[in-house]
């Protein structure tokens, strides 16, 4: 069996006695996309929080490329090669698009090594490639705070991509986007999956379909079902707790 890039093993996370994650496990292979869906409060964001070290599990462990990273600080986990996009856009509003990307792309992030002025040529080249991919070449000198919502989301995906991470965790990257924008985002993620792995959370089934990747369904802190989107959509349990409800809402 191929070695997993990320392996989440029996993780339990408890907030004041309430188990937001309840012994959940998940394995991700290199250069693959995995979609994570589930009703509100299922624990999807909490799972990403735990992988990135923002939330500490009470039980279980997380192994990345064979190394146990459960107890590491966030910034150390990031330097090992995992980067996360938050549900709310987390760009640096008072810096230009270029500065946002180049801060993410710098290989040396220790404070005492940051006294250079300007951007190294290797970082520059990397940033230029990302700018082109996220379609913000024209906006490079714009303050990030002045971008439209969709552009902010792309910029943040760009930041996550330009960080030297191999595993990218995206929390609802297409939220608030128009149909067009969200199709472009799916296309972007698929094109990037040739040399990255993605764990993507989203509620929008059209977007999930466009990603054409295996889907894991979470419910009440547990993994309910894993499979292709078609299998998931036919599964009576999934329909009962999640998809059925979405349909009712759509009808109502």
């Amino acid at each position: 069996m191929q070695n997993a890039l990320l392996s989440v093993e029996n993780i339990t996370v408890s907030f004041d006695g309430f188990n937001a994650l309840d012994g959940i496990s998940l394995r991700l292979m290199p250069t693959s996309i995995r979609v994570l869906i589930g009703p509100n409060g299922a624990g999807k964001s909490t799972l990403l929080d735990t992988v990135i070290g923002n939330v500490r599990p009470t039980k279980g462990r997380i192994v990345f490329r064979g190394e146990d990273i459960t107890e590491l600080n966030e910034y150390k986990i990031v330097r090992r090669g995992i980067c996360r996009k938050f549900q709310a856009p987390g760009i640096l509003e008072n810096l230009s698009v270029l500065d946002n990307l180049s801060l993410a792309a710098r290989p040396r992030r220790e404070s005492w090594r940051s006294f250079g002025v300007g951007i190294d040529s290797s970082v520059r080249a990397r940033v230029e490639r990302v700018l082109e991919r996220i379609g913000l070449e024209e906006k490079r000198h714009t303050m990030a705070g002045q971008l439209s919502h969709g552009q902010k989301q792309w910029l943040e995906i760009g930041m996550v991509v330009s960080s030297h991470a191999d595993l990218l965790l995206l929390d609802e990257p297409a939220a608030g986007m128009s149909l067009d924008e969200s199709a472009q985002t799916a296309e972007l993620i698929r094109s990037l999956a040739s040399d990255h792995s993605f764990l993507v959370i989203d509620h929008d089934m059209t977007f999930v379909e466009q990603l054409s990747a295996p889907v894991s369904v979470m419910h009440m802190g547990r993994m309910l079902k894993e499979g292709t989107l078609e299998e998931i959509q036919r599964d009576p349990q999934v329909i009962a707790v999640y998809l059925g409800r979405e349909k009712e809402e759509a009808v109502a």
Partner: protein
Amino acid sequence: MKKWLRPALDLALLAALVAAPLYLSAYHLSLLGRFLAMAILSLGLCLVWGWSGVLSLGQGVFWGLGAYVLVMHLKLVGLQPGDMPDFMLWSGLDHTPGWWTLFRHPAVALAGVLIVPTVAAAGLAWLVFNRRVGGIYFALITQALALAFATLLISEQAYTGGFNGLTDFTTVLGHYIVDPSFQRALYWITVGALAAAFLFCRWMGKTNFGKVLLAIRDGESRIRFLGYNPAGYKTIAFAIGGAFAGISGALYVLHVGVISPAMVGVMPSIEMVVAVAVGGRSSFTGVILGTLLVNFGKDWISSAMPEMWQLSIGLLFILVVTLLPKGLAGIPELGRQITERIRRRTARRGVEPEVLAITQKN
């Protein structure tokens, strides 16, 4: 603002400061020199608070460390061989302690002025920021530190001169401090130190380090999730703030000829923060102007109506925070917003469309 305007204004300010001995009386020149020394501290606070978002209510401590180290040196060089500082004799000490005599050599004293406050600031910051303590808790810790520092200075009278502090020093590197030519030289040294500090800050703002600081201020967790450890950045920024405070304190005592616990405690530390807020906490030019304005204001109010000073500084702080959150540095932007609003209002009334088109083109 046009691109050349800002450096041009900075240069004009520098020229006005360099030439000040030509047009200011000795008294006003000495005041200006003092306040320019304070402005070095403000630049440090600008990096710490304005750029990294770390509010320090204890800059007086680092300022005081720089000042006390220099004054210890000045007291020692004023002694006849074998003598002890007067207040130590009165307190019944039989010899000058080693950590005092260490600073007899001018090079050691100069190094001490830089190193002691820097190390103190770095140590505090490293301890606190690595534990993820920040924001208001850090501000409270620094305020407690200022209180403790002043209290310690008062209680250890035998070593610190106690409540009255240290004074009566006459020469520095063989020059008489009261000599007008020395006073003028001291003034220019202060201007030079301030200009150097200013250029350092400007450079710092352009480095990646400066950009990470801004990012920490605006979203500490975001930058952490890009693989940066904010504690390291904030510690270095705070250490620089400490170094600037120390230099500022050392220059200041040369201008005033005395240092005492009342100058380093809670109230002076708060005044330092108010001066920076008035200037605009993230603008280097702004904090220099703010410091001059607040300190000249203080001088004027405390001689006209001494009891009004604390009240006025409180009022000033409230006014700035509510009406002018970006301080003096925010005035140009505020002006632009107001003209914009007026223009939009005229536009809504639909008057004189041609005039409107012309203004919009400009």
